[in-house]
C-alpha cells in the first residue's frame, strides 16, 4: 500500500528526514517510535503534504501512484488520514459541518453523490458511540475549548467517519487518561481490516498493548534505525533509547533497519 524509499525532507532548509525506508502493506499496523525530535511528526506531515516540509530526495509510492505529486486534499480524498499530534481549533466551524463537508468531498472524489441529511445523521450517531463522545460536541466549533483528550477523541471520530485506507496516528495516546486510551484504541481497532493500513506513532508501549502492531520501527535522527516485531517495543520500554545509542553504527548506516 505504502512504499517509502530513501525519503529526505527538510524544514526551513534544515534536513530532518535523512533517508527513510518503510514498506506498509494493506491490513498491517506499523508502530513508529523514537526519541523527541527524531522526525516522526515530520514524516507524518510529509506524507499528508503539509506546506513547509520540503522533500529533498527519495520517493513515496501509495497504491501504485507517486504520492508526492498530489495536493493535500487529493491525498485525503485518496484515503490518507492523519490524526494530528496537536489538532488546531477552528472557531466558527462546527464539528458537524466539518464532518459533513469532509465526507462529501471524499465521496465526490469517489464519484458518489452527496450524503443525505438523514443518512449522515445516522452515520454520525453510530460513530460518536464508537468513540464515546457526547452529541453536544458535534455542535461545538472544531476543537475549540476541547480538552487535550477530547481533541484526540475528535480526531478519531473524523477518522471513523472518513474511513481512510491509510491512517496515521501521531501520538494520539499522549494526554489521554487510561479510560480514554481504551476508548480510542477500541475505536481504532474496530477500523482495522484487510484493506486498511495504519501507522501509529507513539512513545509508549501502553498504547501498543491495545493496538497490537505487526511491525515496530525506531526512528532516530531522521532514519529508521531498527525495525522488528511487537517485541521490539517491549525491549525498548525495558532498555530505553540509550540501548539504541550503543548500536550507533546502525544509526549511522543508511541501510540500517528492516
Amino acid at each position, binding site marked *: 500500500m505504502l512504499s517509502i524509499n530513501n525519503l529526505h525532507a527538510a524544514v526551513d532548509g534544515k534536513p530532518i528526514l535523512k533517508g527513510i525506508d518503510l514498506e506498509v502493506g494493506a491490513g498491517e499496523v506499523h508502530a513508529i517510535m523514537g526519541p523527541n525530535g527524531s522526525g516522526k511528526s515530520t514524516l507524518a506531515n510529509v506524507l499528508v503534504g503539509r506546506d513547509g516540509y520540503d522533500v529533498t530526495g527519495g520517493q513515496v509510492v501509495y497504491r501504485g501512484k507517486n504520492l508526492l505529486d498530489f495536493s493535500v486534499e487529493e491525498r*485525503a480524498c485518496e484515503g490518507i*488520514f492523519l490524526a494530528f499530534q496537536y489538532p488546531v481549533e477552528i472557531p*466558527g*466551524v462546527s464539528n458537524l*459541518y466539518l464532518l459533513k463537508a*469532509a465526507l462529501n*468531498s471524499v465521496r465526490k472524489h469517489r464519484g458518489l453523490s452527496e450524503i443525505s441529511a438523514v443518512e449522515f445523521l445516522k452515520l454520525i450517531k453510530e460513530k460518536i458511540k464508537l468513540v464515546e463522545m457526547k452529541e453536544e460536541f458535534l455542535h461545538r466549533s*472544531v476543537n475549540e475549548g476541547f480538552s487535550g483528550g477530547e481533541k484526540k477523541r475528535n480526531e478519531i471520530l473524523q477518522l471513523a467517519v472518513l474511513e481512510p485506507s491509510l491512517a496515521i496516528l501521531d501520538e494520539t495516546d499522549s494526554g489521554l487518561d487510561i479510560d480514554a486510551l481504551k476508548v480510542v484504541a477500541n475505536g481504532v481497532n474496530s477500523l482495522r481490516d484487510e484493506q486498511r493500513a495504519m501507522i501509529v506513532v507513539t512513545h509508549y508501549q501502553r498504547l501498543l498493548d491495545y493496538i497490537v502492531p505487526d511491525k515496530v520501527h525506531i526512528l532516530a535522527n531522521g532514519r529508521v534505525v531498527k525495525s522488528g516485531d511487537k517485541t521490539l517495543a517491549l525491549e525498548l520500554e525495558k532498555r530505553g533509547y540509550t540501548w539504541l545509542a550503543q548500536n550507533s553504527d546502525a544509526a549511522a548506516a543508511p541501510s540500517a533497519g528492516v
Partner: protein
Amino acid sequence: MFEAVQKAYVDAYEGAASGLPGGSIPWVRRVRESGLSRFREVGFPTVRDEDWKYTNVRPIAKQPFATAVRDGVVVTGVELPEHAALESHRCVFVNGHFIPDLSRLQKLPDGVTVMSLSDALRQGVAELETELGRFVPDALHGFAALNTAFLTDGAYIRISDNCSVEHPIELIYVCALDGEQPQVCYPRNLVIAGTGSRVAVLERYVCAQQDRYFTNAVTELVARPSAQVDYYKLQQESARAFHVGGLFVHQDRDSTVTTNNIAMGGAIARTDLHVTLSDTGAHSTMNGLYIGAGRQHIDNHTQVDHRVAHCTSDEFYKGVLTGRSRAVFHGRIVVHQDAQHTDAQQQNNNLLLSRDAEVDTKPQLEIYADDVKCSHGATVGQLDPNSVFYLQSRGIDQDSARSMLTYAFAKDVINRFAIEPIRDELEHHLTLTLLRGKPVGEPA
C-alpha cells in the same frame, strides 16, 4: 478646478430649485438653502480633513455629476432583488425617484404611513416642517449638505404610537443610468417610529448595470420613547459607482435601535452613522459588515453620542477584504458630562484575505463623565494557514476551506442580523466575492 465643479452644483441648484417638489413652500426652500450654503462654505472634503484622511474623494469631486431626473427613468429591464422568504412592504426608487408601479404598499397595516418624500413635500405634510433635517448634525460635510440642497425624493415613513409592523419595510434604490453623462441621485429618507412602536426597515442600494454613477444619500431615523427599530442599510452599488451616505439616528427614552450596516458595493463607498442617545434607557446596537474586493474602497465612520445617563451602546463591525481593496473603520464614542452609568462597547475585527488588501481601523473614545463602562478593541488578521491545512487534510479543497473559514469569521456578526433571508444572502455573497476575488455584481 474643484471650485469650478462646486460652482456647477450651485448653478444646478439655482436652475432647478423652483421646480423641485415643494419648491414654492418657504420652509422647504429654507431647508434646501441651508444645505446649499453649508456646501458653499465647506465644499467637498479632502484628505486634509481629519475625518477623510484615509478616503480620497477626489474621483467624486473632480467631475460634475448631473442630477438624475425623473423623466429619464427607464424602468424596463430593472431587476429587483427577490426573496421568496422575505415578505415585505416595498418602495422602489429608480435613479432616486419613486416608482409606484414597481412598489408594493397595498398591505400596509393601519397606523403606518409610507409615502414618497416628493409627495409628502408637495402635500405639505406638517411633520416634515418640524422634523426634516432636524437630526442631521450642523457640522456637516459637503456631501450631506449637497443632499439637503437637492433633497427631492426618498421615503417618508411614519409609524404611529404603539403600532407593531409585522413585515419589514423595504426601500430599494436602483440605479439604471445610461452612463453617457455621469449622474447623481440624492435619496433622502425620514423614518419616525412613534412611541412604543416596532418596525424593521431595510434600505437597500442595488444596481441594474455596472455603471459609474453617484449616490449621495441621507437618512434620518427617529425612535420615540420605547420604540424598537431594526434598521438595515444594505449597500450593493455597482463596483464602478460612488456611494456616500449618512444615517442619522436619534433615540428617545428607553428606545432600542439596531442598525445593521452592510457595505459591499461601490468603487468608493462611505457611510457616516451617527447615533444620538438623547434620553435615559436608550440602547443602540450597531452591527456592521463590509466586504471589499478588487480595488474597492469602503469607509465606515460611526459615532455614538451618549448625552444622558443610563444609556448603552454595543458596536460590532467586521470586515473581510480581498484583492487590492481597502477599508476604513472609524468608531467614535462620545460620553458627555452628564452621561453617568454609560455602558459603551465597541469591537472591530478585520480579515485580510490577500497581501494587497488594507484596512485602517481607529477607535476614538471621548469620555467626559467619570462613572462609565467603556471598552473597545480592534484586530486585523489573516486566515490561519494551519486551519486551512487542517481542513484540506480532511479532503476539503483549498478554496472551500478558505471560504468556510471566512464565513466562520463573519458569522457572529451575520448572526446578529435578525432577518434570515439577509443572513442567507450574505453568506452567498461572501463566498462569491471570495471565490471570484471580485466585488459582488461585477461580471467575471
